């Protein structure tokens, strides 16, 4: 089979179906309603999502899932960003489930982990991941178990053995907790190279999860801004007729358009060769963050004073973008990974290495 950078009909129609459901169920009003609840989570909604088969998409069939890959899920992650879904669906599917799978497939965990997989598939957020790169766990209070650790250490810890301190995010949809582990009660699962590899794959999946959502967030912000500036009149005509307003949004559109294939390539790489995904993932995170942060700024700007209010729904997307751009590695972390790679004297640079990076026998010469 030759090069084919398109999604299948099946992939497209599944996304359409879930996207339709999300746009019905996750409205700005309902997102705001969650802000006033203790948990910030709509468990019925989570069950609905689970019933569509979303949660276990990336879990192998042998473990009870659908056995699909990151390319099957990436547009759904994007849609979750577009709808600003507060629940950590993307993280559960793309980060927690694959980490559990990695552990089980390496024979590092037992029945209790399989039970967690089952819970996850049913829409319960029983497990949280506390990766060393993230200072906080979003919705950490929902889980019974935390996969955590420092350096190359990966442990399983019961919630009771973790001191969770609640922290307030700029995004009211997020419920952050700082975790302090009681090491005595942690069950070590992996260390050394194995642990390092688990954390590295997890980081790449986490960064991909945020990148895909950031693209969706950016698209939604632009769409809202197009609507607002087409309706809102000033000096006797819609403000969207002003070239300056048009160009602010066109600039964002360009960034989004060129972030999308980068994110899809990252999903493909995470799925097909996770051990060589660092560059593709960091590129995706940087490109998606750039698009989303530019969207936040320009879309606030074209909304005028309205864009600066609590009342305007735009804030839901803007603040999520600000938060996700920093989670799972900020721009500094990811740019530094790329820099390190580009500076290697044997890095395979040039147009013939866009894909796969090792396509010909004489590549190193170049």
């Amino acid at each position, binding site marked *: 089979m030759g090069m084919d950078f398109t999604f299948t009909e099946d992939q497209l129609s599944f996304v359409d179906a879930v996207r339709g459901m999300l746009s019905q169920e996750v409205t700005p009003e309902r997102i705001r309603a969650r802000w006033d609840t203790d948990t910030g989570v709509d468990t019925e909604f989570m069950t609905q999502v689970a019933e569509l088969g979303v949660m276990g998409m990336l879990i192998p069939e042998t473990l009870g899932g659908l056995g699909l890959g990151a390319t099957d899920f990436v547009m759904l992650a994007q849609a979750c960003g577009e709808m600003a879904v507060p629940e950590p669906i993307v993280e559960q599917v793309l980060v927690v489930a694959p980490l559990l799978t990695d552990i089980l497939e390496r024979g590092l965990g037992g029945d209790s982990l399989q039970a967690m997989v089952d819970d996850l598939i049913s829409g319960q957020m029983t497990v949280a991941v506390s990766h060393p790169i993230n200072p906080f766990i979003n919705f950490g209070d929902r889980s019974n178990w935390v996969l955590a650790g420092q350096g190359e250490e990966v442990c399983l810890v019961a919630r009771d053995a973790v001191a969770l301190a609640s922290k307030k995010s700029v995004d009211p949809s997020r419920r952050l907790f700082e975790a302090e582990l009681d090491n005595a009660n942690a069950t070590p699962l992996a260390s050394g190279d194995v642990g390092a590899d688990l954390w590295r794959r997890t980081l790449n999946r986490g960064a991909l999860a945020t990148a895909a959502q950031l693209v969706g967030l950016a698209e939604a912000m632009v769409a809202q801004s197009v609507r607002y500036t087409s309706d809102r009149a000033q000096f006797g005509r819609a403000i969207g007729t002003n070239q300056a307003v048009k160009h602010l949004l066109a600039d964002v559109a360009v960034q989004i358009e060129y972030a999308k294939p980068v994110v899809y390539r990252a999903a493909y790489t995470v799925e097909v060769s996770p051990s060589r995904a660092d560059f593709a993932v960091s590129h995706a995170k940087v490109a998606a963050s750039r698009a989303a942060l530019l969207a936040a700024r320009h879309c606030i700007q074209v909304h005028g004073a309205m*864009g600066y209010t609590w009342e305007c729904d735009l804030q839901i997307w803007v603040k999520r973008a600000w938060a996700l751009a920093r989670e799972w590695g900020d721009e*500094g972390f990811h740019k530094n990974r790329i820099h390190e790679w580009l500076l290697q004297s044997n890095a395979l640079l040039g147009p013939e290495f866009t894909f796969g990076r090792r396509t010909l026998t004489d590549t190193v010469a170049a």
Partner: protein
Amino acid sequence: MNLGYSDSQQAFREEVRDWLKAHVPAQALPSFDTEEGFEAHRAWERTLAEGNWGMVTWPEAYGGRGCDLIEWLIFEEEYYRAGAPLRVNQNGIFLLGPTLMEYGTEEQKARFIPAMASGDEIWAQAWSEPNAGSDMAAIRCSATRDGDDFVINGQKIWSTRAVFADWGFGLFRTDPDSERHHGLSKILVPLNADGVTVRPIRQLNGLPGFAEIFFDDVRVPAFNVLGGEGEGWRIAMATAGFERGLMLRSPARFQQAAKRLVRLYREHTQDLLDPSVEDAVLRCYMDAEAYALSTYQTASKLVGGGSIGPEASCNKIFWSELDLLIHETAMKLLGARGELEPATPSELQELGPWLDGFLFAQSGPIYAGTNEIQRNIIAERMLGMPRK
């Protein structure tokens, strides 16, 4: 050209510094967009007024010190250096006060200035209307003459401080047959008057930094019209120039923020930073200083009896983009912890006021005429490009 301070300017700086050292509250006050914070800031205004530091450029008769603009800049440098509270009464002392002194009758001055200076009456502005944002001349709020009174009807929006303030001022259409910038008058309205309803508008940070004001047959005496009926636009334009901008956006504010940014950068140079950060830090420090230099240049011109040209319209774009860059860069330095709203003293110690400043900086390129409008003005009035 002499870019050094005279002995008396030096002495003035030291006097300001000493007084602030003795009086600035050790603990930062709560935000003046909360009721508690508003009153705490009002108390601070009283403290300033008691020391005659409320508005040093005002004449001594009104509690000022008759300072020139260079001294004003020195005062502000020390004020920001000392980390003194924000000015809850800025609408009054910076915007309305000078207008009152120029256009008010003696009776109006006697009635309003002392209470403004003492902090007893805090002022809100009421310029914008729902359909007159950057297009100020589209005002529709009416004030209809009825005997010795005017009766006000309509709605204002984006009124800063209006949630807790005592008085408001703005432009109202006193000639019902007029259009655009004709037939407007500048009127002062007590916000506790019958028929006034203030609906808070929450900002991105959740606090009501501005409000809508609804006027339903609000009756104010003709005494409250400033500078004559129908003169509103002329008065607003005359006082909308450089000095207003200078008062509201002291260079010292940005220089102090840039200084904090350099320190934050020093603390983080060992981190894996976005490589654009170093460049941004340098640029912020340089641009803050450039803004100060430009302001000193203009102030010198004014002190020497000169006037300001259309180049002053560059000011708004420069400081608002600088303020954004300072705060965006700080947020990059804070990395993943930057999304946190500091809730405890130790969090505030670690994270500083950067997130709040970042949120506030978003409004800079919007209020007081969006930067898009400002670019039109620069192109047309300063560069002379064709309008249509």
